[in-house]
């Protein structure tokens, strides 16, 4: 193999690795360690965070937790999982408060706060930036 072809090979590997990281979501969905799910499809996550589903199958109440001031990760979560925009999401919660009396999720001030809430509440579910993950909570694979 020539030097040029070797460079091409390495550059291709680098491109693949870069694409893998760029395509990877900046957030992870976390639940309490007692949660029986290992993975959930996006559609069901959407129902949980929009409070259309209020209980887990085993009866525990669902407590969705949103993250305040999370910038790009929040935008990515809102569009990628909730399939909406921040503006439309705010309008959705206005509608839900008036029509159903359902309040929006609690907002944690930081990923550490979100993790602490999830670790302390069996029915809690939250999302945090991938970089803030640790072993106090369980990661829910997004399908």
């Amino acid at each position: 193999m020539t030097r040029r072809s070797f460079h091409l090979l390495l550059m291709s590997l680098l491109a693949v690795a870069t694409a893998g990281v760029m395509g990877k979501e900046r957030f992870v969905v976390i639940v309490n360690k007692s949660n029986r799910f290992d993975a959930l499809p996006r559609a069901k996550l959407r129902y949980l965070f929009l409070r259309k589903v209020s209980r887990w199958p085993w009866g525990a109440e669902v407590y969705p937790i949103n993250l305040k001031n999370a910038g790009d990760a929040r935008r990515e979560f809102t569009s990628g999982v909730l399939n909406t925009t921040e503006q439309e999401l705010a309008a959705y919660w206005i509608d839900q408060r008036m029509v159903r009396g359902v309040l929006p999720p609690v907002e944690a001030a930081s990923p550490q706060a979100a993790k602490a809430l999830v670790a302390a509440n069996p029915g809690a579910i939250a999302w945090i930036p991938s970089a803030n993950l640790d072993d106090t909570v369980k990661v829910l694979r997004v399908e």
Partner: protein
Amino acid sequence: MALRPAFERIGLSPPRRRCHLRFRAFERILSALLLAFCAGAQEPSSPPAPSAQDTQSVAGGSLAQPPVDFAGYASFRRVAPQGGSNAANEFSASIFATGTLGRFRLHSEWNLSNATEYDSEGINLVHPRRDLSVKLDSATLTYNVRDWLQFAAGFEFVPTYWRAHRYQSVTLTVQDPVTDQSVFPTAFKGGLVKGDKYLEFGGFSYQLYGGVGQQTVYRPDGTGTFLARDPIMGGKFVFHAPCGHWLDACDVGIHLARVFLPGGHVNNLYGGEARLEKGRVGFLSEFAHAYMGVPNGGPAYNRQGFYVQGAYRLARTVWVVARFDRANLDSRFDGPNDIRRRLLGLVFRPVPDLSLKFEANQYPGPTFIANPDFGSLPVPISVAASPLPGHPHHYGVSMSIVYFWHRP
């Protein structure tokens, strides 16, 4: 890790000697970059220590919500017909109080308005005056057994789509459709069983209700209106169709109800609704039909109507909306009872809590008749007669400002 051994293991020729050193350096840089990316993708960084603010916000680790949540909105609406002599202004404010205790939830709405309302909403808390009404619009206690099985009792709106979502902070138009409150009764006191079931793709919602309905109707002698209260039972089923990537929402519903009148007569009602959303585009439509039995022995007649509303989000905070309404509120007579209205509006929502709306309306009719069947505001929002020969369509404008708030 050097790439060179792996290189040799798979049988590739090593690079030429004369560039060996430079190539090794390049190899190392690329290897380091690859390792860095792989490490970044797979390994979480060690968590930083929580800040003082975090410690405060998670004190106790409780997610309990406040025992009572208060929210509300204040709105001003102005509707001006052609010529402006019949302009109507309405100031309205609602407070929503919601309390949750375990599986129980109490949700209520209290409304204050200065408009002379002919609508059938709510229970007046003080004797209504021409320029003031204070009402309990709804109050429902719900017990949640499962999401798909909930029992509720209290004073509730008949669940047509517009009734359920009629709030000025939510609607894209200033005016309600003509069919709103005209065909189905407005509200009822009683009980309901309801629920939602969402699957991975799609789902359904239902409501079965019964009780005493209320609706504003004409007096038989033509001397005005009164609030008729008659037993009602009905049901509504909404199918949330699985629409994959084609649509963001696709809800189709059917609604049946029966009102039991004195003397064994009945009003049979049915209706349907459709709501579609895709990106910037939204579509909403409802129709309603009622076969009206007449208690005093007169001939039965039909009431029916529909509206078709389309909306497009021009920018992040601006929508344009268009709607066509048509209703015939008494099939025994033509003319004034056949109402058609076209509406084109613009909604500016600089922040989610604040809405500014402007509308232009085209409505048929040279005169305005105060008709309570035509909607919740007085002249001329929903008050119009069909055009008589030789009379052109008339035009009007409407605007509203709505502010939503909540505590805590």
